[in-house]
C-alpha cells in the first residue's frame, strides 16, 4: 500500500458494468481515468454517452450533454464512495479512508484486496461495501455494492507510465 502513495500521475482505461435491479441486463460503460496527486481525478466516459467527471478536492464537475454541473461530493454519497475509495487509495491516504470506512486488507503486496465498509449509518444505508483489488501500486478492479442490491464492477487497465 505504501507504494500507492508514491503515484504522482496515472492514466488508465476502464470498463464498468452496472448490475441494476431496474434492468434485466447490465449497463456497460467504458472510458479513461486520470489521476494527478494529490486530489485531482478525471473520469471520462466515452461509451455509451460521453461524460466527464472531474473531482478536484471537494468539488465535482460533471460535463454531459453540453451541460456543466458543479456538485459537492457530500451530497452524492455513492459518487463520493467511488471517488474517495479510488483517490484515497491511490494517494495512499489511509487516514482519509479511515474517516469514511472500516478497512480490511487481505493478501500481500503482489496481490491485495482492500474492503471498505462505510462508518456513517447514512452512507451505509446507500453503500454496503467497496472492494478494491490491486497489484503493487496499481488498482485493478473496484466493486461497489449498494445497499439496495445494485452493484457496479469497474475493471481498470492502467497505461504504462
Amino acid at each position: 500500500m505504501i507504494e500507492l502513495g508514491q503515484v504522482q500521475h496515472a492514466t488508465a482505461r476502464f470498463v464498468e458494468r452496472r448490475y441494476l435491479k431496474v434492468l434485466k441486463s447490465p449497463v456497460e460503460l467504458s472510458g479513461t481515468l486520470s489521476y494527478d496527486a494529490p486530489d485531482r481525478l478525471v473520469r471520462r466516459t466515452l461509451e455509451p454517452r460521453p461524460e466527464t467527471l472531474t473531482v478536484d478536492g471537494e468539488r465535482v464537475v460533471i460535463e454531459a450533454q453540453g451541460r456543466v454541473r458543479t456538485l459537492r461530493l457530500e451530497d452524492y454519497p455513492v459518487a463520493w464512495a467511488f471517488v474517495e475509495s479510488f483517490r484515497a487509495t491511490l494517494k495512499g491516504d489511509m487516514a482519509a479512508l479511515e474517516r469514511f470506512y472500516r478497512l480490511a486488507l487481505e493478501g500481500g503486496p503482489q496481490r491485495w484486496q482492500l474492503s471498505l465498509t462505510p462508518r456513517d449509518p447514512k452512507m451505509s444505508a446507500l453503500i454496503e461495501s467497496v472492494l478494491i483489488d490491486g497489484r503493487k501500486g496499481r488498482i485493478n478492479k473496484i466493486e461497489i455494492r449498494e445497499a439496495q442490491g445494485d452493484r457496479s464492477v469497474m475493471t481498470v487497465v492502467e497505461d504504462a507510465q
Partner: protein
Amino acid sequence: MSRVGLIAVGAWVALMAGCAWIAWHANYTADLSAFLPRTPTPSQKLLAEQLRQGVVSRLILVGIEGAPPQALAALSQALAARLARDAEFAYAANGSQEQLAADGEFLMRHRYLLSPGVTPEHFSVAGLREALDGDLADLGSALGALTSRLLPSDPTGEFMRVVELLEPEAGPQRQNGVWFNSAGTRALLLLQTRAAGFDIDAQERALARIRSVFDAVAAQQSALEARLSATGPGVFAVGVRAQIKHDVSRISLLAVVLVSVMLLAVYRSPRALLMTLLPAASGAVAGVAAVAVAFGSVHGVTLGFGATLLGEGVDYAIYLFTNTAPGNGLRRSLARIWPTLLLGVLTSVVGFSVLLLSQFAGLAQLGLFSIVGLIVAYVVTRFVLPELIPDHFGVRPPAALGAAFAWLARGARWLRIPLLLAVVLSVAWLASRGHALWDDRLESLSPVAESDKRLDETLRRDLGAPDVRYLAVAAADTEQGALEAAERVGAVLERVRRAEAIRGFESPAHILPSDATQRARQAAIPEPDALRDNLEQAAQGLPFQPRLFEPFLKDAAAARQQPLISANDMAGTALALRLESLLSERDGAWTAMLPLRAVREPSAAARELSGLAGVHLLDLKAEADALYRGYRDQALHLALIGAAAIALLLFAALRSARRAAEVLLPLAAAVVVTCALLSLGGHQLTVFNLVGLLLVVGVGSNYTLFFEREIFPRSDPQRTLISLASCNASTVIGFGLLSLAHANVLRAIGSTVALGAFLSLMFGAILAASRPVRG
C-alpha cells in the same frame, strides 16, 4: 414670585413632565426607510417595503467559527434545531439534508403540476421513448444512483426538472452535513425573523435569542472557543441604534461636562451654570416629544442631532448671564437683549422650517425637532429663568478674559484680506470639484459601520445570499392574476435568457404555478389506460424490468385528479418563504417579483419586457441612488429657500438691506469656506453636511446679529465679546465632540457645525471690526 411667574413656572414643569413621559415611551428607530419619501412612486414604495419589511429585511446571516469543523457543524445543527422551533424565527436553515427533505417531499408529491416539462407530447409514445432512452444513458452516468432510485416513479424526470428550475446554481458548500464557507473555517446559517426588519425591538430580541441559544449550545458541547457573528439588515439596525445611543449618551455627557467647566470658568457661579443648562435641556426633551407625537417614532439620527441642540440652546442663557453684572438687574438685561435673541431664534426657526416641507420624513423630523427645541429653549430663558433667579443675580467673568478678547477683536480687521482670499479660493475649489463634491449613493446615508458592512459582504458571499439588483415586477388585482402575469413575464425572460442577456431568473410561478397552468398540466397527462399503452410501446426493446413503472402510472393518474396546489400546501417548508418573498399582497393589490440573475444587458431585458402591460423592470440600485439624489437636491433647494427666507426676515426686521447684508455676509463666507475645508479633507458631502450648514446659519446669525447691533459696547464691550466667545465655545465643544462619534451621520453634522460655527464667529468679528462703531 408673581402670579404670572407662577403660571410660567407651573406650565413649564407640567410641559416638561409631559414631554419627558412621551420621550421616555417613544419608539426609536434607526432604519434607512425614514429617509425615503413620504409620498413615494410605486417603485420607491416597493423599494421602501423591501427595506422595511421585505423578506430580505428579515434575513439574519450567521457565521460560527473558531473551532474544528466537526465542532462547528455540531453547533450549527444544534443552533438551527433550536431556533427553528423558536417563536421569533420563521425559518432557520443550515443546509442539512433533514431540512431539505421537507422541500424535496413537497416537490416530489406535486411534480406533475410544478414541472414545465408536462405537456401532451411529453406522454406520447415518442415522448416517453425519448425519456426512457435518456434514463438508460443516465443510469450509466455519474449520477446514475439518483436516476435508478427515482426511475420507477419518475421516468420522465419531472422531479429533477423542478429541482433544477428552483436551484439552478450551487449553494454554499457542505461540510459535515451543513453549510460552510469555501475555506471550511466557518459554519453558515440563514435565519429569517417573523418580525419585520424595521421592528428594531423585535430584531433586538431575535438577536439576543440567537446569542443566548448559541451560548447555551456551546456550553453544552464544551465548544466555548467558538464564536458567533451575525449580520443582516435587522442586525444592522439594532447595532446602529445601540451605537447612536452609546454615542449620544457618552458625547452628551462629555459635552455637558466640558461646557460646564468652560462656563464655570467664565461665570464663576455654579448656579448660573445650572440655569444655563436648563433651557437647552428643556428644548431637547420638548423636541423629542414633538417628533414622537408628530411622526409616531423618533429616528436615532434626530436624537443624535438633538443632543447637540445643547450647542445653540445654551446660547440664550449665556447671552443673558454674561451681560448681567451682579446688582445690575437681570430683568433689565433681559429686556435689553431679548429682541436680538428673538430675531436670532426666528432666523433659526425660519431656516429649519423649510425642512418641514421635505418629502423625507428623516429631514422633516430634524426640522421639527430643531424648531420646537429652540423655541422652548428661548421661551424658558425668557419667561422661566427670571422666575427662578433673584433679580440682583449676576456674574463676574475674569477681567483678563475680556481684555484679551478686546485685544483680539481689535486685531481682527487686519484679517480682512486673508478672509477675502480664503473665500475666493474656496469658491474656486468648490467650482472645480463640480459633481464630485457630493456623495451620490444612498448608502452614504447609512450609519452602518464599515467593519459591519465587510462582515455582511463576506457572509453574503459565503452563503450566496440574494443580492438582488434587477427585479421584473408585475402587478395584478388577484393572486391568480399576479401568478399568470409572472408566467407571461417568465416566458419573455426565458427568451432573454436564451439570448444570454441574463443568466437566469426566479419566479413565484416556479413554486406556485397559476391555477390555469396547473389545470393545463393535469389535462396534459393521458387517461391511465392510454398512458400505460404508450409506456409499454415506448419501453419495447429496452432492458427495463417488467412492471417497473407501476409507481409512475399510479402517481400520474393521481396527479390528474389531485386538488390544485395552493400557497398553504407548502407551509413549514423553505419554499413557503421563497414564495412569500416573490409574491406579496398589500391592500388588495398583488405584486409578483422576478429577480434576474447575472444581468449582462439590462437594456435588452427592459426592451423585451416593455411589451407587457403592468410590468416593469426595476433597478434597485439605480432607484435607490436616484432617490437619494432627489433627496439631496431637494435638501439643497430647501436650504437655498431657507437662506432666502432668513435674508428676507433680517431685511424686514432690520429695515435696511445694508444691515441685513452685514449680518449675512460673514455667514455666507463661513458656509463657503466650511464646504471647501470639508471637501479638501477628502470628504464627499452628503445631505447631513447640508443640514449641518443650515444649523451653522442658525447659530451664526446670533453671533453676527450681536456684532451688528452692538447693543453693549456703550455699557461694556468686553462683556459682549465674552458672551459671544462663550456661546461659540459651547457650540464648538458640543459639535466638535459629535465629530468623534462612530456613526458617520453624527460625525458629518458634528464636523460641519463645529467648523462652520467657529468660522462664523471669526468672520463676524473680522467684518464687524472693520466697521465704524454705530452711535
